[in-house]
């Protein structure tokens, strides 16, 4: 019995842990830099002596930033929230419905419809951004909220993931629903959806993160400062270089804080979503 168990390599374990700790510090360094610079003065940031952390932290940077008209961080946060919430809700709604229909509802042309949807998944985003702009401009949606939101509501990828999920959904549950006199929509609404919380959370969080962090599309469509998302706003400040360093970093802190919180709370589901996309994609 003792043949298969190896003696522990203590040296190797210590080395590995040491390497991991070093790497972890390196990965966290950018976060610490944001925190430090957000609560320091520009004089402290550029001082010849390296500052580890400003004590006491300059919390007055916060009201300074909020009252700075050129930054408009609150407008950015509001726009980003509205866009990300709308896109997450409708993307998940449309793709779960379509995924369920494609997996469960018998229809003769189902495979053809599925093939069409999968084919659109193959089109890279690079091929779409000029064409979609052309369409949105023709609709007169440049500089509107719907111009930013609507083209991003239809995800073939999420639909594919939901379809794979519902293919394995227990048939008995559906049959029980039929016996109780539920229609297809009723079965979806009252049996399938409540039993898909895991996948909805996983894909929903991934969609939310993607939407919150999106840059090129909101940059192109939301040209007016009142429509800037937090990413577009920060990019404008960064590339124009008109704002104090500490304010740039504090604005960044505002932009990443909501996601870091969501991340720490929903990490289990996000990791699940990543795994799903890896094994099914």
């Amino acid at each position, binding site marked *: 019995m003792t043949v*298969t168990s*190896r003696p522990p390599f203590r040296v190797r374990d210590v080395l*590995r*842990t040491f390497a*991991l700790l070093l*790497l*972890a510090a390196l*990965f966290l360094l*950018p976060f610490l830099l*944001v925190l430090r610079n957000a609560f320091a003065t520009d004089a402290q940031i*550029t001082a*010849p002596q390296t500052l580890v952390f400003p004590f006491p932290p300059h919390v007055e940077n916060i009201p300074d930033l909020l009252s700075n008209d050129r930054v408009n961080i609150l407008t950015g946060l509001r726009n980003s929230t509205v866009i990300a919430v709308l896109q997450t809700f409708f993307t998940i709604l*449309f*793709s779960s*419905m*379509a995924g369920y*229909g494609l997996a469960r*509802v*018998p229809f003769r042309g189902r495979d053809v*419809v599925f093939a069409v*949807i999968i084919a*659109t998944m193959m*089109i*890279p985003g*690079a*091929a*779409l*951004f*000029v*064409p*979609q702009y*052309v*369409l949105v401009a023709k609709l007169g949606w440049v500089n509107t909220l719907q111009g930013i939101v609507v083209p991003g509501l*239809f995800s*073939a990828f999420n639909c594919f993931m939901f379809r794979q999920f519902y293919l394995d959904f227990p048939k008995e549950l559906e049959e029980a629903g039929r016996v109780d006199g539920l*229609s*297809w*929509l009723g079965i979806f609404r009252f049996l399938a959806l409540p039993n898909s919380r895991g996948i909805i959370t996983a894909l929903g969080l991934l969609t939310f993160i993607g939407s919150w*962090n999106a*840059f090129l599309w909101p940059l*192109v469509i939301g040209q007016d400062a009142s429509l800037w998302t937090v*990413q577009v706003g920060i*990019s*404008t400040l*960064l*590339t124009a270089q008109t704002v104090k*360093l500490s304010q*740039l970093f504090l604005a*960044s802190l505002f*932009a990443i804080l909501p*996601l*870091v919180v969501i*991340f*720490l709370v929903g*990490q289990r589901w996000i990791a699940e979503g*990543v*795994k799903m996309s*890896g*094994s099914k*994609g």
Partner: protein
Amino acid sequence: MSTDRTLRPPAQRPRVNRRSRQWESTLAFWVFVGPLLLGLLAFTVLPLVWSFLISLSDARVSLNVGKWVGIENYVSLFNDRGFLDSLRTIGLFTLCIVPLTFACGLTLALLVDASKRGKAFFRSVFFLPTAVSYVVASLVWRMGLFNGLYFGLANRLLVALGLDPIQWTFDSPWVWVVIVTVRLWLQLGFTMLLFIAGLNEIPRTLYEAARIDGAEGGWSTFRFITFPLLRNTSVFVLFTSVVGAVQAFDEFYNILGSGAGGSSTAGVLGARPPMWYLYEAAFGSQDYGRAAAGSFILAALILLFTLLQARVFGLGRETD
């Protein structure tokens, strides 16, 4: 498949009922799939067709089809040094970032997976950058870590080591360090998670068997068991990181750009990447015909690579 038809009970429901049920499910199918399908047709297929027509038209400062110029837009792109250089820039970038992402992601996964203590902690720390946008990461890299002035963190380190500070974002080849590491930091956690998931699917019994057969562990186990069995994950990682890299825009624009209409320091790379080139063609010079043609060329290159990869690795599907 040979089911004995004679053993089946005869259909019990009346015909009419079955037909109405069929109609009911057809209707339900369209209610379920209709919204997504219509959306995809309207916002993916229709724009593609339209902009293909535009790419064959003279569409300067106009979004209309009609002034046909044939393949002139495509020809002019292939004669444009700026466009060709942008393809070279992104090719070089892809060659740097993809192997690095692959190797570092796999290494991280192996390290975290093998660690006995704090596995969940390390996984979270390495995955956390996924929450950060390219815009914010670019800001941190440009203004904080790799600021070309003396107070950038990398320069403070160099000076402490007795070396000269570097003007990171203005200086080739150093600018490549900035532009590659920012994407590496952002996407390594994702890659690591994929590899960890792949590692967990390898049956433990294989390692036991190898040990009984006298494998020494370490490199030979990795070479003959772990790596071959990670094939599907590896193909997926390669595929997603290449497709992502070729379409890179955010970090280039935010690290090297100086705002709408302003000049940029992208020259240190040789040229700006294709997505930035297309962005300028469409929204700077308003030449939608050329921009559309460019996006089709880029898409064709990505598709070509995808097919090539499918050819080399199979479709990345395991048949068990």
